[in-house]
């Protein structure tokens, strides 16, 4: 009976911990929870270079890159850049 109690405690703790870890992952993935802002997307600068070989946007445009993105873009991952920015051709 007492072993069942401790198993239940471990199970509840595990579920709570997974839930809170999911929250961490969601905080770090704002593209999942926020809808695309189409008005802002219209104002987004077009991409001035071809994309082939340049899939990792953060390499040049991340905070430590040569042409960093503005601070308001903090938290957006490589996969989310293309939601607003498109190549010129």
């Amino acid at each position, binding site marked *: 009976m007492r072993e069942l109690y401790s198993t239940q405690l471990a*199970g*509840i703790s595990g579920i709570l911990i997974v839930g809170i870890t999911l929250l961490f992952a969601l905080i770090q*993935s704002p593209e999942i929870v926020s809808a695309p802002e189409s008005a802002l997307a219209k104002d987004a600068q077009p991409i001035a270079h071809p994309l082939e070989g340049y899939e990792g946007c953060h390499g040049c445009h991340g905070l430590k890159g040569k042409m960093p993105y503005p601070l308001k873009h903090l938290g957006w*991952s490589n996969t989310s850049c293309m939601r607003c920015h498109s190549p010129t051709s």
Partner: protein
Amino acid sequence: MKHFLYGAFWIGIYIVLIMTPLFVLLIGQTAPGRGFWRELSVGLGFTSLSMIGMQFFLTGRFRYITAPYGIDVIYHFHRQISIVAFLFIVLHPLILLISTPRTMTLLNPIIAPWWATAGVAGLAAFAIVIITSLKRIPLGIRYETWRLSHALLSVAAVAFSMAHILGVGYYTQGPLKRGLWIGLALFWIIALVYIRVAKPIIMLKHPYTVERVVRERGDTWSLILKPDGHEGMRFQPGQFVWAKIGKSPFALREHPFSFSSSAMREGVLEISIKELGDFTSQIGDVAPGTRVYLDGPHGLFTVDRYKADGYVFIAAGVGITPIMSILRTLADRRDQRPLLLFYSSRGWEEVTFRDELKALEAHLDLQTVHILTRESPEGWEGERGRINPEMLARYLPADRVDYEYFVCGPEPM
């Protein structure tokens, strides 16, 4: 209700302590996310390391942690939550490999960066801890070997994991965040050092000496222990200690034994031990003057925690030991609440403390129902066989719901 709230509070504290270090990483300038699955994998990695570190506290026998639940529940929780933490630590690389297959190269120690290899080593150390703990007996590992390797491999798992997260450095940039995780690791190691080094040193300064060894009925021996150079230990009736008899307090092997003496008697302690295994079969050979070191008291099996209008005790064999402590204490307190004891033994000559139980009936409102499972003397009019609901119903009072019940005995009971 009070105990439920107290227990819920400590689970809440546990969750906060596990998760806070993860969310501190989001304070201030934080590295951007790299996709949901990668961040979930990283979160599980950090979380599992927090859980592993907290294990050093769970097994430290700290009274504030064990008091709400009982030390047996804490130890079972330690085992169960270890498996949960292991699941998380396995999911960490698994999710990463599935979401970003190119990270497979991190598993190759020849080409992978050192911090990736450190992560794999930490996972391997933890896997060995889990496997040797779950399968110690089938693997034929001696208890002392297992206990030493358990501690060393756990420290190794924490050390390798710390090297891994500091080497990756994605979320641990800056002195504050690095300092937090290094500080946590040191905190966990300090807990381990306290348990394995400081506590035995404290025990070394509070030794006991075997004053007498008394043979009881039913292959049981009572060791009368006298504190040597200190006042002894206060305990609640029904509690137990871990004892190291004739060994150093640093020895890895220790045994849990219940007190059988009254909690009202200062100084001298008594533990009663039945010959059941390799160690206990030689307990009768312990000589007066033998040094004993005690870690305790522990346990919630005590009437002092559960107030009631009366008590029912159900015991078999050596399970009578903590109940004797309770009955002796209640007699010293001149407690007159109704007490009912169901005591199962193999035969009449094996009823431990038989005569004293009879004598206690003169000092307490105690009714003892003896049940004999094998041999019974000629003319025996008492109960026979195993304790069952019909037998209990014959003796339980009408207001049985108001009583507290204490059960102690072997599993078949």
